């Protein structure tokens, strides 16, 4: 597959760009940040559901569009331009994907159409506070009890966990804390007895939660995938979510970069536009190069998924794109604030939102160094 957009994808891009520009603004984000409601717009979310965007990669029989990751990429990039906080990653890329890749037909039929329609929200509770970037670091444990399980422990950084109707919880059913073997995924309704959810307040204004489970009783059919073999499923889910996140990051870094170049063309100092200074021109040019290389890596990662390549190729491409986008977005976030000067340090100006998002997105699913080490390991050094 070539690294170019099809005509249909260009049209989708146009639609998404107009939607984001018309419906979302950074002013809206300020409102969400100050308010104590959900931290995103349910009305907008349902509208995205009606447009089919929540089901782009979900099969038609489950209410999706049955399209590919490159189609999703186009939409994610535009959502990233607008820094939109709606729960695409949590509910679709993590939650629905876990069920799509590992769930039973009954679980899929029960949840996927509702997720695609924007009527139900899912979240994947896989991280714990001490786990850093090791998805196998699972202390939350599940013990067989009667025909079902009893789950206890604490999950953190659960993206959009505060609003999720159902949580997919990674719990240990065998082995030691950092073993890959012995992890199982459970589907837990939020109102199950023993579940408490505490909203976290994050630097980028996005939504996450701590999920505490105390002797939470779940039935046998709550297991997603195979008992003790959740790590492989988790890995496949995370690589897809990571790939989609890189498209979002690309959109965000481009928006920050374009704002900065515009500023260089309008800000006067010493009686001239600051964009005439070579010290700034060269740095802006380097930022542009970074965005081009990032775009190539992002398109490649989505292409690899659409080509149905093996898990190792998907993992490699996802890590390549994530390392690239993490470094590039952070660079652009830093440079954007620096080039805006004093105004860039104010909360009143929008550019700071991008710096904060750069940091949060870079850390989500592993930072650049983590993904470089992962590639080194995959390549045998």
């Amino acid at each position: 597959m070539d690294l170019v957009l099809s005509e249909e994808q260009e049209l989708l891009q146009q639609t998404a760009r107009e939607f984001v520009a018309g419906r979302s603004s950074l002013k809206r984000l300020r409102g969400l940040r100050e308010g104590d409601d959900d931290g995103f717009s349910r009305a907008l979310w349902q509208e995205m559901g009606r447009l089919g965007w929540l089901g782009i990669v979900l099969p038609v029989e489950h209410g999706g569009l049955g399209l590919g990751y490159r189609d999703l990429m186009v939409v994610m990039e535009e959502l990233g331009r607008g820094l939109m906080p709606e729960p695409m990653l949590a509910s679709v890329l993590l939650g629905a994907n876990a069920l799509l890749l590992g769930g039973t037909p009954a679980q899929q039929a029960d949840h996927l159409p509702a997720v695609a329609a924007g009527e139900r929200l899912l979240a994947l509770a896989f991280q714990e506070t001490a786990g850093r970037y090791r998805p196998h670091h699972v202390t939350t444990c599940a013990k067989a009890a009667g025909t079902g399980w009893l789950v206890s422990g604490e999950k953190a950084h659960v993206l959009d966990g505060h609003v999720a109707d159902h949580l997919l919880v990674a719990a240990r059913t065998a082995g030691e804390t950092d073993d890959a073997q012995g992890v199982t995924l459970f589907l837990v309704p939020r109102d199950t007895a023993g579940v408490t959810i505490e909203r976290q307040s994050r630097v980028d204004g996005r939504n996450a939660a701590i999920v505490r489970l105390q002797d939470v009783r779940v039935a046998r059919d709550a297991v997603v995938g195979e008992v003790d073999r959740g790590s492989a499923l988790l890995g496949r889910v995370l690589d897809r979510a990571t790939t989609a996140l890189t498209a979002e990051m690309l959109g965000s870094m481009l928006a920050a970069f374009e704002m900065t170049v515009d500023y260089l063309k309008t800000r006067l100092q010493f009686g001239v536009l600051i964009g005439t200074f070579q010290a700034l021109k060269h740095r802006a040019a380097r930022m542009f190069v970074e965005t081009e290389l990032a775009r190539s890596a992002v398109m490649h990662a989505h292409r690899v998924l659409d080509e149905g390549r093996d898990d190792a190729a998907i993992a490699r491409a996802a890590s390549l794109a994530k390392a690239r986008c993490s470094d590039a977005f952070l660079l652009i976030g830093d440079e954007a604030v620096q080039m805006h000067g004093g105004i860039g340090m104010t909360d009143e100006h929008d550019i700071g939102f991008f710096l904060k998002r750069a940091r949060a997105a870079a850390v989500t699913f592993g930072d650049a160094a983590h993904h470089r080490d992962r590639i080194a390991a995959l390549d045998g050094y």
Partner: protein
Amino acid sequence: MADLEAFRADVRRWLQDNAPASMSTPLTNPDDVCWGGRKTKYPDDVRRWLAVMAERGWTAPTWPREYGGGGLSKQEAKVLAEEMAKLHLRTPLTGFGLSMIGPLLLQEGSEELKREHLPKIVRGEIRWCQGYSEPGSGSDLASLQTKAVRDGDEFVLNGQKVWTSYADKSDWMFILVRTDFEAAKHAGITFLLMDLEAPGVTVRPIKLISGSSPFCETFLSDVRVPVRNVVGKVNGGWLLAKALLGHERTMIADVFKERDDARRLVALARKHVGESGGRVADAVVRDRIAQVEMDQACLDLTLDRARDNAKAGHKPGPESSIFKLYGTELNQRRRALMMDILGPQGLGWEGAGFEDRELKVTRDWLRSRGNTIEGGTSEIQLNIIAKRVLGLPD
């Protein structure tokens, strides 16, 4: 498609029948790369391989048959390249004739110039070099001062060119000269073809910090060049030169990468830094290797994307500046990392105590410092991106 598959079978059979066996072995010596020309003696098999390929025009597969080329379509040329790769065959001929002046002549040259020069390029008879930079005109190339004064049907050239790659081994030079000293600096430049055998041409190699001498100084004293050797129009040379520079930049991005670099880096690190649990022992070195390899992968993907874009009919952007800038800096980082990995074993110049491949790392590192200078410095590429892509004000 059926035709293409039949073509593929023919090509394979012909290559198997005609390629000397030694041409399927890896290059051991850079001197075995065939640049053609009258001044270099190549090994017998190299000459034979060039001769049989040139006979079919397959040294320049897509050039028209009337100028000695292969007359192949793009798909057929791709098939030829693929079949050659499968047999691990070496490129029969390389150089500025095939990659730079030939394509330019095809686009802009007069019929007479095409008929005179293209067949000789295809056959590797004439090796070409490029006369652009001057002692006073490096980054500011358009300020060049080599003077060409019209005298009847000839121009008389006086001046000095520098950084003329392999001028000492070349037969002809494509050269930029000033034909109008009154006009704005970009508007008085003419693109000429000059025989290096002409009286008044003196070529002197320049020794670099790496110890090698790939570049020369070329002195011109009353050198007479026929007016019919002008490519394009008199005083219209700058645009042609710029187009060629774009091409050169893409080439430079690609040319320094050696295909086994990834394995070489890791093998070097295992040897000099050590192993632990099957991995390179030092996490910092590991990270730097991964960084270089991943940057290379992203650059390669961007080159692919530019090709895919061109194939889809999109206008080419200023990608060549990106490739030149990023590719050369990446090559420098790779060479510096190799030196860091070698440690004290990277300090050799020649002789005892150092393996040949260690000495090569050292020389390659020194050579790589020129990558960000030749073909337009990194700073010039950044200027081009800032101006043409970002539209930043002057």
